């Protein structure tokens, strides 16, 4: 099974709050791969909106995203795009 990890600094204006969090979950749930997000010591399930919201990831915070599964590569690509776009949602 492919397994990837990547450090990503959030660039979208709303951080990983609000709608980006919902979008993140929506994307994650399209894939079979397992995904976790870590911010410092805290690590949550990337397919859970509640989990992501408890992280409280602001713009500029650095997250470590880990994906594990057959379609992991594609998933990571899509998530990275979401988090690094300057303003993906208005």
């Amino acid at each position: 099974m492919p397994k990837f990890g990547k450090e990503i600094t959030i660039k979208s204006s709303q951080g990983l709050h609000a709608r980006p969090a919902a979008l993140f979950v929506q994307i994650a749930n399209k894939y079979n791969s397992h995904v976790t997000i870590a911010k410092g010591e805290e690590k949550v399930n990337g397919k859970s909106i509640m989990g992501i919201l408890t992280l409280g990831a602001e713009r500029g915070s650095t997250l470590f995203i880990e994906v594990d599964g057959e379609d992991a590569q594609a998933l990571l690509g899509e998530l990275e795009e979401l988090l690094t776009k300057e303003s993906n949602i208005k």
Partner: protein
Amino acid sequence: MSEVILKGIAAAPGIALGPAFIMDKQEIIVPPRAIMEKEVPIEIARFEEALIKTREEILEIQKRISSEMEVEHAKIFDAHLFILEDRTIIEEVIKKIKLEKLSVEYVYSQVMKKYAKIFSNIEDEYLKERVADVDDVGRRVLKNLMDETKMHDFDQITKELILIAHDFSPSDTANMFNKKIIAFATDVGGKTSHTAIMAKSLGVPAVVGLKDITLNVKNQDDIIVDGTKGLVIIDPDENTKKTYIDIKNRLLAIREKYLDVKDLPAQTKDGQTITIMANLELPEEIPTIQKIGASGIGLYRTEYFYMNRVDLPSEEEQFNAYKHVAEAMVPHTVTIRSLDLGGDKFLSSLQIPKDMYSFLGWRAIRFCLARPDIFKTQLRAVLRASRFGKMRLMYPMITGNEELKLANDVLNEVKGDLRKEAIAFDENMPVGVMIEVPSAAMTADLLAQEAAFFSLGTNDLIQYTLAVDRVSEKTAALYEPGHPAVLRFIKVTIEAAKRGNISVGICGEVSSDPALVLVLLGLGLRELSMSPLNILQIKKLIRSVAMTDCEKLTQEVMRLTTGRDVEQHCLKRLKELAPDFVSYDNEMRGTAA
């Protein structure tokens, strides 16, 4: 904001003004309950079951809404599914059940509270609003996990309020008596729904079948419930409010005026005494019935036990209720009607297609004879309770002597069993027949040979005589209580009872119609049973007329050719015979906005 008028089904008459209290939006109380180690897997399994059930519910609502409304609205429920199936929540709940050894509903409610708080602290309007979604999902899951009787704390209600819900369940009832609830309004339900029954027993107005009132009203909104016309007015204009307050005050004044007859006999001016009894739905109504001085129970409906629940009522449960009513009403008679399911009353615990027990189908005594297991349980409970007061039993929808005999055979069998078990009962409990089918009225002379008494069930008798479905809106205008055929059937029945030397009463709604009741008296009826709400008004009326005038009116009416003529003539004569009489119903109907 201008007022919004919602139209629903008038389920219980009257008018109420007050603040809205939406039950579905109140916090659910979940006390902690400790579990044992071996119960952990059970709790987790209950959790999974509740999640699956809730998922099905949400999908069902989504399907219904997306076909009715715009798709945007249905999308809200996508968010609900997200929250319902959120892995963090589920994992946290399971972990906590294992760790803290507390029941799933308590753990779940705590976890959901925590997340609702996280949501409400987020500085984003869109997500802040999602708190409502978290609450909504949490409520649905808890409903599927909990005994509903313990979900709401009505003791906290200290101010008068109008209770609003999607629907009310029987388990809500017990909590509502003696509380300051002044009206009910619900999204679903019909004239015979549990909400209607409950409101009538509490003597408060109710409007049901409002479709989406729970979405249109907010807590503490000022609203008016017009249970006579079936309207709910949200944020009423000053004018509307004034109109309704006026009507309400007039009604109160009339009620006040009626009260002075409560301890006086129902006696006509020329000395004829009439027995006015009450129709009873719930044992909780007894205090009200005693207060207004009813001379017994002329119809104790027992369907309540069987409706809106998933299991069948036990013999013990029925016995306790019947005994309580019998004892409370001593020295007066209590007339129990055996199970009258079908038509517009359905048995929730039996999965029978509704069309199978239509008005002409498998209902009432037919159903009981086909299901002796259910019938016998009730008869045992009735017989056992019979020795605690003055009890009578009557069978509904008897079409002739054959059915009466079959029903009595079952009764005798049950009596035999009780004797064998040395269980005491009243050996002389009178057993009567409801006259509510034309064939029964036409053979009343034959039935009088076997029955101890008759009770005219005019609601059904009218619909069967005129071939009018009383529930259908389209044929409602054809439902004429004053139709000559109906009056003739009543007359035939009374005469047969007299010749057979048995008593005869009436328990249909006609008996509380101020115009027609005079004709009933003129035809010879001396025993009326009606909704407790109407007793004082009819007593007041009886005390203001002479029997000779009623008899004269009846002679005039029996010569008329149409139901409409009969009703108009009665109304005209009512005004002449009792000029001071003010009808409660007319007052409510005639003047409202």
